[in-house]
């Protein structure tokens, strides 16, 4: 898998290429079959160009997401406009807005309900680090505490252009992944075991009842 290309922005002008190259090295560590790589490229092309975001937003950033869908910025140009309201059909969850302690399990559940491959973009200060509400008793300080985040988009709220930039960063990341290749997609969710344990517990409780 080579360096990912994005229309209209040269590779060098993107931020944080170091992390991307590091990921690329990890994935390509064992080498890959030519046929498989070609097939992977096709699949990755499909996936990266058909990112259907989930209709999720908790506060201010969600309004910018709406503005992004509207005529001036038009996310349909990228094929992102098919916002799904059901998590089952979405590929991407744009965490727009503060996640509070009460919302955290709900968000986690939404994420668990999504079908693989799924991605998370943390939009805005609140989801990156807690943002304006870092001192609060009821705010999750960084959504990476509960979800595996792929891209961080800082801003309060970020401009719609910054949203696109984040989405294109994600596309770049999607373009280097392996679907059929030797090394499969990195097991990126560090909270997975926790969630599975919880699920088992719930199943047990249900069976007892």
């Amino acid at each position, binding site marked *: 898998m080579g360096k990912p290309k994005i*229309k209209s922005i040269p590779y060098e002008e993107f931020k944080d290429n170091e992390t991307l190259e590091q990921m690329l090295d990890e994935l390509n560590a064992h080498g890959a079959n030519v046929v498989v790589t070609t097939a992977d490229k*096709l*699949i990755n*092309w*499909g*996936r990266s*160009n*058909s990112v259907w975001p989930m209709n999720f937003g908790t506060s201010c950033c969600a309004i910018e997401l709406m503005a992004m869908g*509207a*005529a001036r910025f*038009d996310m*349909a*140009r*990228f*094929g992102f*406009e*098919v916002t*799904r*309201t*059901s998590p*089952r*059909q979405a*590929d991407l969850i744009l965490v727009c807005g503060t996640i509070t302690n009460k919302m955290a399990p709900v968000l986690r559940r939404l994420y668990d*309900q999504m*079908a*693989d*491959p799924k991605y998370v973009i943390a939009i805005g200060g609140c989801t990156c680090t807690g943002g304006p509400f870092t001192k609060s008793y009821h705010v999750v300080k960084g959504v990476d505490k509960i979800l595996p985040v792929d891209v961080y988009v800082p801003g309060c709220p970020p401009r719609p252009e910054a949203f696109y930039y984040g989405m294109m960063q994600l596309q770049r990341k999607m373009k280097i992944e392996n*679907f059929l290749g030797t090394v499969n997609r990195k097991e990126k969710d560090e909270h997975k075991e926790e969630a599975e344990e919880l699920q088992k517990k719930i*199943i047990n409780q249900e069976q007892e009842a």
Partner: protein
Amino acid sequence: MFDFSIVTKWFHSLLCGVMPEWTAIGIECLIVLLFIIVLYAILAIVLIYMERKVCAFFQCRIGPNRVGKWGLLQVFADVLKMLTKEIIKMRQSDRLLHDMAPYFVLAASFLTFACIPWNKGLEILDFNVGAFFFIAVSGIGVVGILLAGWASHSKYPIIGAMRSGAQLISYELSIGMTMLTVIMLCGTMQLSEIVQQQADYGWNIVRGHVPAVLAFIIYLIAGNAECNRGPFDLPEAESELTAGYHTEYSGMGFGFFYLAEYLNLFICSAMAATIFLGGWAPLMIPGLDGFNAVMAYIPGFVWFFAKAFFVVFLLMWIRWTFPRLRIDQLLSLEWKYLLPISMFNIILMALVVCLGLTL
């Protein structure tokens, strides 16, 4: 007008010459199947692309333009993605019914696909109760939707499914009534014959004037409702029921519903084109012989697709203009307005036909 039955008959006799008839028919069936599947896929992709562009233009945007030239490859990317997406299996759903539901919906649209006359002599199923068959098989779709809602074991899908049950069963009546109006005018239920008559005597919408226009409008409304498209998208009702009956479907399961929605849209428009706008019959204006000759030169299937896509655009225009109806508005529209009017329309058509007032 070129008659495709010459080609099909020649092909049939060619096959029969080298093999027994039953194998020939078998091979022909396979070819037809392939033809339907390919056409199905192409149409779905074209329609989805068209919907996204048209809707963008209605909303003063420009729509997909970054994947391929003018975004032409957008839908291919979507299909690829959906094919490689995980299919979620839910613990508490009724697995068998849940997995079967999308195929019911697909089957319904496949079957209705079969009875559309694409060109003169080019239809897959052509029998004397074609219109009847069309109504009958299009009713299978509602079973799929009901099953999807029921088997999902979830609250929103079940509300969506129940709504769709009420809606489809009601609007089927109007569809039947309006088709009956046309059948009355043509005196036949055979779809190829209906089109042939239109080629000979002028399009039904002109020939049947007032009652035919009324029937056409009612058919469009009811057909739109049959396709579950806005403003009749109550079973999906994004803002109320998240995604309605297919809330719990992921990957290709959802993909099938998505495809079927667009195919149903096409079938609805194709049927409107067939029975009202003359199917493959070219536009003929009496008196303008030169113009008519040029029109007749254009192949029939081009006419057919042009008319069908015109109706598709009309339906998209409606969809992207109106707010969604509420369930009681929906039912009162059918039972208080469309049904009585179409009944009255049948009587009117009967009078028109009996008194020889057709154009």
